[in-house]
């Protein structure tokens, strides 16, 4: 039914209806005109032939009297498929003819009758009425003659025309409906193809193109135009990727050299303890630079969905478990307790490495802020700092929650912190690049997951909600290496 509804809403349907109406009107008009003119031509020729016969009979009476006229009428009456004849005397007695019964009053008016009259044929076994056009005329001596022509043939012709009118209307409507269904289905299928293709493109498959049927129709022209545009976008995207790959390569090579040299200098046993410290801090700084740089590149790639990432069926709970175990010890050392609650078999479609990194970033932050809050100035007892990790199924979503009871993030800053390099005033003094949450946000986007920053009263509660694994969904393995 929905397909039908879709069909009705198409432009093709509206156009078909307009064509149907115009075509039907035209057909009806033309057939009516043909019917009318044929009828009038037939009627005219009928009247003319009756008049000719009347004149002929009148001449016979003048030449041979009533006897000859009666003979002639008798003779004519006997012809098969003959016209109607009737000869009456002044008293109304039939002298000759082939009419058994006439409509009342048919003989009263002289001349051509205005309308067809009904009659019964002489010797007709069925005894039914026929219709005829008649002409009555008087002869000297009180004789009266009727000449007529049966018009059932003409009536039959009219019926045929009427029928053909109805049938042609039916055929036109049926043909219009069929052509509409074909046109609409073709149009719809083309549009569906285009919609599907554009969806795949939106998902990051930039090499995808809109289908071109090769018929050169308006859809092909449209698709070709859009494809040219897509090719241009792909070139630009590719250029961008190449640029970032080259930046990665060109910047990392000197960074590697720099690190190597410092490392070599350190290996040479620096002359003073101070030199050693300077060199070590230089290595640390360069490592920090590299880390930020890698994180930026990774976020950019994940956001562009351009990277060839392999998605598979993974257990989100297992990842949370891994990271909880990884960070548990760190949290305890920082005076915080890390508690986790994980349900079994929480399958989602995703990239384990990226989701792992996202949860690691969140847990890292949570541990950092929970313990900082309680041991900020190094003197306060840190007991009570808590980090909670949970993974559970909520309907058709898999929810991962990372919560801490640290300082939290004020409502007005929550959208803001997802952007790159944003670090709240309070945390500026702490280590970190300000890219952690941006990466989490990008990873969530890539996985069709939602990311919400909520108030943990006190603290921050980060809720990641992934669509649950669906067996019907085909894995979109972007890997095409």
């Amino acid at each position, binding site marked *: 039914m929905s397909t039908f509804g879709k069909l009705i809403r198409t432009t093709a349907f509206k156009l078909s209806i307009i064509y149907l109406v115009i075509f039907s009107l035209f057909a009806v008009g033309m057939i009516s005109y043909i019917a009318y003119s044929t009828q009038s031509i037939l009627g005219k020729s009928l009247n003319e032939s009756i008049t000719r016969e009347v004149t002929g009979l009148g001449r016979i009476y003048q030449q041979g009297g009533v006897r000859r006229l009666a003979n002639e009428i008798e003779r004519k009456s006997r012809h098969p498929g003959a016209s109607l004849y009737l000869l009456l005397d002044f008293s109304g007695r039939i002298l000759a003819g082939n009419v058994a019964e006439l409509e009342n009053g048919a003989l009263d008016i002289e001349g051509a009758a205005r309308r067809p009259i009904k009659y019964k044929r002489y010797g007709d076994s069925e005894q039914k009425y026929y219709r005829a056009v008649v002409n009555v005329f008087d002869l000297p001596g009180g004789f009266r003659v009727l000449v007529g022509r049966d018009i059932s043939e003409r009536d039959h012709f009219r019926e045929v025309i009427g029928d053909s009118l109805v049938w042609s209307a039916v055929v036109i409507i049926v043909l219009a409906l069929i052509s509409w269904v074909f046109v609409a289905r073709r149009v719809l299928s083309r549009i569906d193809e285009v919609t599907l293709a554009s969806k795949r493109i939106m998902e990051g498959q930039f090499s995808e193109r809109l289908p071109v049927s090769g018929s050169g129709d308006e859809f092909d022209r449209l698709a070709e135009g859009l494809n040219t545009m897509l090719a241009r976008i792909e070139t630009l995207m590719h250029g961008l990727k190449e640029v970032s*790959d080259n930046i*990665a*390569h060109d910047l*990392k*090579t000197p*960074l*590697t*050299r*720099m*690190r*190597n*040299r410092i*490392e*070599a200098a*350190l*290996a040479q046993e620096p002359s003073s303890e101070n030199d050693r410290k300077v060199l*070590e801090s230089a*290595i640390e700084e*360069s490592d920090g630079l*590299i*880390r930020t740089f*890698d994180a930026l*590149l*990774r976020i950019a*790639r994940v956001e562009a969905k351009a*990277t*060839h*990432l*392999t998605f598979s069926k993974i257990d989100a709970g297992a990842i949370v478990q*891994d990271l909880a*175990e*990884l*960070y548990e*010890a*760190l949290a305890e*050392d920082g005076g915080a307790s890390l508690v986790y609650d994980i349900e079994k078999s929480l399958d989602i479609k995703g*990239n384990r*490495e*990226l989701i*792992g*990194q996202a949860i*690691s*970033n969140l847990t*890292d932050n949570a*541990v*950092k802020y929970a313990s900082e809050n309680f041991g900020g100035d190094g003197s306060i007892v840190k007991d009570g700092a808590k980090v909670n990790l949970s993974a559970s199924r909520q309907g058709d979503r898999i929810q991962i929650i990372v919560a801490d009871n640290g300082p939290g993030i004020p409502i007005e800053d929550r959208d803001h912190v997802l952007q790159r390099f944003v670090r709240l005033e309070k945390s500026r003094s702490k*280590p*970190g690049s300000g890219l*952690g949450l941006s990466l989490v946000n990008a990873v969530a986007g890539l996985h069709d997951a939602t990311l919400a920053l909520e108030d943990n009263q006190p603290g921050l509660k980060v809720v990641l909600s992934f669509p649950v694994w669906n067996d019907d969904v085909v894995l979109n393995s972007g*890997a095409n*290496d």
Partner: protein
Amino acid sequence: MDRVKTMRVLIIEDDVEAANYLSKALKESGHVPDHASDGEQGYMLASSEEYDVLVVDRMLPKRDGLSVIEALRTEGCETPVLILSALGEVDDRVTGLRAGGDDYLTKPYAFSELLARVEALVRRRIPGETDMVYKVGPLTLDRLSHSVKRDGENILLQPREFRLLEYLMKNANQVVTRTMLLENVWDYHFDPQTNVIDVHISRLRGKIDKDFDGALLQTVRGAGYMIKAGNLD
């Protein structure tokens, strides 16, 4: 379980300075390096000479690193390969390993990291890999019964601690870096913001070293950790 002896290493790297530094550092560590500066030359050398390990840059002139590795693997060459790359994307590693690489290191790297990984790769080929019991001095780890003993005394470990110790003992007398531990024990390849591994090491240390004479699990400054009988020299 001796330390890996002299290795013949082929470095295929177009950045001459990086290659020279690597060669020099490898020589200082007692190994014998060779250098090829493009893919074609590297392929020729790798297929004609005997090496213990290949260090291959991914982006090379004339012939890219992955195709060199693929060609060598097709010919039946089984020399372990460490891929070096400026590309550190999640799936770049997967493609590199799929092409026949044995390990993947993202640039820029610390030499200690590279050396530790190269030694681990060579070690992997030395018979004894399939040993069911690892022994380092007074410490034994039974991979079948999942039991750990020091001086005949049972030590109870968490499953993750067991895997950590197992990996360290498998690479006994060699430096194992933090990222190697994260990759092999936790199976994640990202770089955690805080050094979470250190905490796990200190816990493990508390169980296997604290109540005994002589520390086996040692910190190698600026590089990582090493499990070794006797003192570090």
